[in-house]
């Protein structure tokens, strides 16, 4: 009897695996997958991670959304004004902003991303100190502002004055670097979906940033993630907010065009 039971459970175990894989492949990803094959990192995440992102309460990224909402109304700097004094209600005034950044800033004659725009407002209009990169308030405000575009398609402008910066970002993406001599394309285009040790490689879409990463146990910026990638191939890293990374950010936004802004996404 015991042998017979064991045999039955062994058959069940063998049968279960292919069935689960087939169900995953047939999944309807809705807005997270586009017809041309581009897919959000959401579709590469484990079901538990996706469930965590989908539940507004369980998604730890919302801690930063809430912190950002508080900072939005908090006066700071020598002018004594808060973001809300100029921009009113963020859900209205900031809707769509996060979906199109980074943008060309004529006054700087280069691209500017969301973090830099927030600090530009602080230093030039509020008379406040800029927030340092990856600090709690800068992460909170960036997350809060980008969250207002949640569900909207990523839609950067890459022509006109932004064109040369887009080309530079694209070249960065395609250039081999580091001791491992790998370019972004080698993992995120040629091997997306394959395993890199214990992790499934995604297409490297930027639509969920700032992202709550379980490995970090905190929310983090896109530039922090890119630095991690550069370190992984044992390459020189650039400073967060450097021109190299902001140009790359525009190219990544273009790769993710049409995918919904997910901020705050949850990834492993």
């Amino acid at each position, binding site marked *: 009897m015991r042998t017979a039971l064991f045999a039955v459970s062994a058959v069940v175990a063998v049968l279960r695996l292919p069935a689960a894989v087939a169900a995953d492949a047939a999944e309807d990803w809705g807005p997270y997958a586009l017809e041309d094959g581009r897919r959000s990192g959401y579709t590469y995440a484990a079901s538990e991670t996706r469930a965590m992102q989908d539940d507004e*309460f*369980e998604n*730890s990224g*919302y*801690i930063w959304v*809430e912190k950002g909402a508080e900072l939005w109304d908090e006066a700071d700097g020598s002018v004594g004004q808060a973001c809300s004094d100029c921009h009113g209600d963020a859900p209205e005034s900031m809707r769509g902003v996060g979906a199109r950044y980074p943008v060309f800033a004529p006054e700087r004659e280069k691209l500017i991303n969301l973090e830099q725009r927030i600090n530009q407002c602080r230093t030039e209009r509020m008379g406040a100190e800029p927030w340092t990169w990856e600090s709690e308030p800068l992460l909170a405000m960036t997350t809060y502002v980008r969250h207002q575009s949640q569900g909207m398609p990523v839609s950067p402008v890459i022509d006109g004055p932004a064109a040369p910066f887009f080309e530079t970002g694209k070249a960065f993406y395609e250039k081999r670097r580091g001791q491992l001599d790998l370019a972004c394309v080698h993992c995120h285009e040629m091997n997306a979906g394959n395993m890199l040790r214990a992790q499934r490689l995604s297409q490297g879409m930027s639509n969920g940033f700032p992202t709550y990463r*379980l490995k970090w*146990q*905190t929310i983090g910026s896109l530039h922090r993630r890119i630095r991690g990638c550069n370190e992984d191939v044992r390459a020189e890293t650039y400073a967060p907010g450097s021109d190299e990374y902001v140009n790359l950010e525009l190219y990544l936004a273009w790769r993710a065009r049409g995918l919904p802004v997910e901020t705050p996404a949850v990834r492993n």
Partner: protein
Amino acid sequence: MDKPRVKVPKKVKAGEPFEVKALISHKMESGQRTDEATGQKIPRMIINTFTAKLDGEVVFSARFYPAVSANPYLAFWVVADKSGELEFTWVDDSGDSATAKKTIEVS
């Protein structure tokens, strides 16, 4: 400590279990990491106790250990027979605490 987030249904039925969700932002420093700059151990600083009380009576409590990740999230079920106030308390190694209160209406 930061302000916690708690989710409970506003209205519940007497004797029927309902789900409570509780999340707090905390770094949960395990005490096992070394500061690379100084070579010194980073001292442990975690939330060690969580308590949920309904009108002063403990309905759920938990002790946390260093393997619990940052920003700990708890979900548990509670049964209530009458309306009252749920009080949640988190205490960390420094003795610092955070409290949240929610009133539930039992019908």
